[in-house]
């Protein structure tokens, strides 16, 4: 364990020897956490490392089985979040606790409303109070709009204002960036820095290492319920942190060898697709993908990527245009017909589109092949070959726990994705449609998925990769297409460009204005 020296008089939080046992898991195993006053303290760890449990204990949601908690030096025994709030602790949960039909003001003051005579809610005064704190901390929100009408980033600002309104000095943010776009994340970081300069202490939970490096002063790493490192951010690097998180060396960026692409396997011509509001989301798009090539689509979420992928997969009827696969135009065919032509698909929303939660793993691995030999004969399922296939995939793709009977919904996110990737690869595709393959996964699983996708590329599968993570697009793609409002702003090769250039194109500037030529 790496430990930095601390001055006990300057501690905002001092948790010592915290133990929390759940029925099957020791979630916190004698955890120590010391947070200095006025610092931004990042807690990193893979999913299930015990970060959220520790924070829920600090916020009074769980009672620890053992250990002590001191806040600003005073020993505390929290019975409920109310006790923690009284000690100046505020928590912004990963899933927001807001009332959508109420206004921003009403949400912020809920439970501590300013009152007029006869205990009538004083909306005007509440609005004034909300305006004051939002100006003080640069957290701009319109106090009179309803929560359901504002974007996620603004809802998060409301959550932060809620804790500040309740007088929080110590803010816990549980994976605050998971729901944000890169721009919103940057805005959040500005807010956090401002809060810090106002003397607030911030605990920031994440599993994204670049965020740790960008925002925190001090970082604690957790693995399997234990703290494996506690070091000043300036004295570490992502590589080292990843090692503490996973317990072994991790490749943060998979290496790939350049190779010549094979023949063209998919060609999209003048494709137009409407979104759910009947507006044109994909505007006259043309591109092609070759065998053994990964074509990455970079762009901010909501610029037509979802509609493009759904149109290719047959889940959404294109308005016009052609999609050539193996020499036939698949535009307008149904998903079954398209799959039979050798396309497999890892969709962006795995819970909604790729997984049937109440089905056991072996049934989930059958999806799409449930009427094909050897898994079905004369309409009857062949459970023996289905079980053999599922056991083979669980073993080969390291899906844990190694049971094919566990329900899909009871797997962790990373293992769900591994199961889906396993299934889609086992279909022997000639082209794979891969959307957001590592969203919400921890770095161990990300490394695994990336390696697997590159193996597929090296075995001559063509791949269209859609991702909001620039890092991912850069490290996997052979070519990058930048999409903005349904049109392609330019095509670049990752080794000939950088994040900045691609970022400009993602913001709507065509390649001709951005690329300065080879430098």
């Amino acid at each position, binding site marked *: 364990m790496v430990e930095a020296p601390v001055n006990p008089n300057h501690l905002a939080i001092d948790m010592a020897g915290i133990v929390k046992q759940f*029925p099957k*898991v020791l979630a916190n195993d004698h955890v120590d956490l010391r947070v200095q006053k006025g610092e931004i303290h990042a807690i990193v760890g893979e999913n299930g490392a015990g970060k959220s449990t520790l924070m829920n204990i600090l916020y009074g949601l769980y009672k620890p089985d053992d250990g002590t908690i001191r806040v600003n030096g005073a020993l505390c025994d929290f019975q409920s979040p109310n006790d923690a709030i009284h000690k100046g602790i505020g928590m912004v949960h990963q899933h927001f606790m807001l009332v959508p039909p109420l206004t921003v003001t009403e949400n912020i003051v809920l439970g501590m409303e300013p009152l007029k005579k006869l205990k009538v809610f004083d909306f005007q005064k509440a609005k004034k109070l909300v305006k004051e704190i939002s100006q003080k901390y640069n957290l701009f929100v319109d106090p009179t709009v309803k929560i359901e009408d504002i974007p996620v980033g603004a809802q998060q600002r409301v959550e932060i204002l809620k804790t500040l309104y309740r007088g929080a000095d110590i803010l816990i943010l549980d994976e605050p960036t998971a729901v944000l776009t890169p721009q919103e994340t940057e805005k959040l970081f500005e807010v956090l820095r401002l809060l810090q300069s106002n003397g607030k202490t911030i605990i920031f939970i994440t599993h994204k290492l670049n965020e740790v490096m960008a925002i925190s002063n001090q970082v604690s790493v957790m693995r399997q319920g234990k703290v494996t490192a506690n070091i000043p951010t300036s004295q570490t690097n992502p590589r080292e942190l990843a090692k503490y998180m996973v317990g072994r060396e991790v490749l943060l960026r998979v290496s790939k060898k350049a190779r010549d692409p094979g023949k063209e396997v998919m060609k999209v011509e003048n494709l137009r697709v409407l979104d759910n509001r009947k507006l044109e989301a994909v505007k006259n798009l043309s591109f092609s993908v070759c065998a053994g090539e990964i074509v990455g689509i970079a762009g901010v979420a909501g610029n037509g990527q979802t509609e493009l992928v759904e149109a290719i997969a047959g889940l959404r009827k294109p308005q016009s245009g052609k999609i050539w696969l193996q020499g036939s135009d698949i535009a307008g065919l149904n*998903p079954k017909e398209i799959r039979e032509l050798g396309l497999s698909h890892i969709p962006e929303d795995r819970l909604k*589109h790729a997984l*049937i*939660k*109440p*089905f056991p793993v072996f049934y989930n691995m059958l999806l799409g092949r449930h009427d094909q030999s050897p898994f079905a004969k004369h309409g009857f*399922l062949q459970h023996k070959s289905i079980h053999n296939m599922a056991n083979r995939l669980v073993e080969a793709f390291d899906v844990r726990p190694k049971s094919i009977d566990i329900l899909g919904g009871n797997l962790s996110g990373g293992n769900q994705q591994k199961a889906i990737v396993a299934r889609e690869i086992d279909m022997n595709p000639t082209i794979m449609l891969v959307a957001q393959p590592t969203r919400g996964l921890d770095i161990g699983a990300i490394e695994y998925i990336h390696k697997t996708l590159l193996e597929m590329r090296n075995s001559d599968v063509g791949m269209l990769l859609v991702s909001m993570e620039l890092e991912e697009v850069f490290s996997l793609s052979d070519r990058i297409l930048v999409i903005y409002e349904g049109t392609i702003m330019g095509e670049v090769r990752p080794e000939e460009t950088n994040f900045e250039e691609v970022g400009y194109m993602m913001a709507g500037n065509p390649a001709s204005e951005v690329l300065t030529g080879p430098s």
Partner: protein
Amino acid sequence: MNRRALSFIIPVMAVIIALVVASVIIILIGEGSFFERLGFLGRAYYELIRGAFGSSGAWINTFIRMTPLILTGLAVGFGFRAGVFNIGAEGQMAMGALAATVFAVNASFLPVFLAIPLSMLVGMLTGAVWAGIAGFLKAKTGAHEVITTIMLNWIAYNITNWAVTAPFSSGVGVPKSPEIATSTKLPALATAQANVLSVGLFVAISAALVIYVLLEKTSRGYEVKAVGFNPYSAEYGGISVSKNIILTMAISGALAGLAGTLESIGLYHRFYGTLSAGKGFDGISIALIGQNHPFGIIFASLLISGLRTGSNQMQFVGVPKHIVTIIQAVIIFLVAADRIVRTILRIRTSKGGSPV
């Protein structure tokens, strides 16, 4: 505790708790000292069980009631498995029975080995088409099947009542159709006084077996369940959601239609305006108690028909037969709100208390 064990234990516990609740009520309506009331309770349950299962006649009456309930239970349960809530078993049953009766009345020219299967086929097809209307509307327009099947129930109610009062009536008194041709009457298994148990019971049990195999052993069953659990993933996996919804409704309606057909060709030998008499709605309760499993549905049907048959006998010792309705209601309540039973048993399922 695994899921399979739980889906068995919950209904059993629900029955036990319901009997305890009913016991309290019986003790309260009894007279005399506490021990006299206990004796009263004992007599009531003794007569209930004797009335349901205590003699061959009792068994026959229970089985007669059970036959249509298995099929309407299967109709609703199969729909549930595929994510559709078919509240229209009542109407599908009536329409199936009417169509099968019309056929059977005019089928005297056919030999038995053709007349009976064809009558069943006509009843099942009619039920399938009647339910298929709701399936088609859901698949193509998104109209919710609860609304459409309830509306179709009323249409079926009025059509069948009009049929047996005007063009297809016979005799006077209760609206009824003419008697069916002898060749279409199901062979009898056993008789108790005026009541005849036909081989329809075996038809119903076979239907449960067929549905079990369909759901658990075939690609079609896989598709139906996938659409029921997650239509988006099903579509992604190449399964046609609208085709499966229409097909599910049609199969569900065919089962309900068969229930009505067996009542006509197996029991009454004609169509009555009151033939369905709520048995279609009973299917909802049966499916719930049977946890939508074909074999569970057979046992649930046996339980409910046993309670109803036995309740007549129980009346003779002075306990109103409505106590059985209370028992049934408590069972359904506890099965529907299964969390109550889980809490009582203090069962922690894998769903509870995620530690992360």
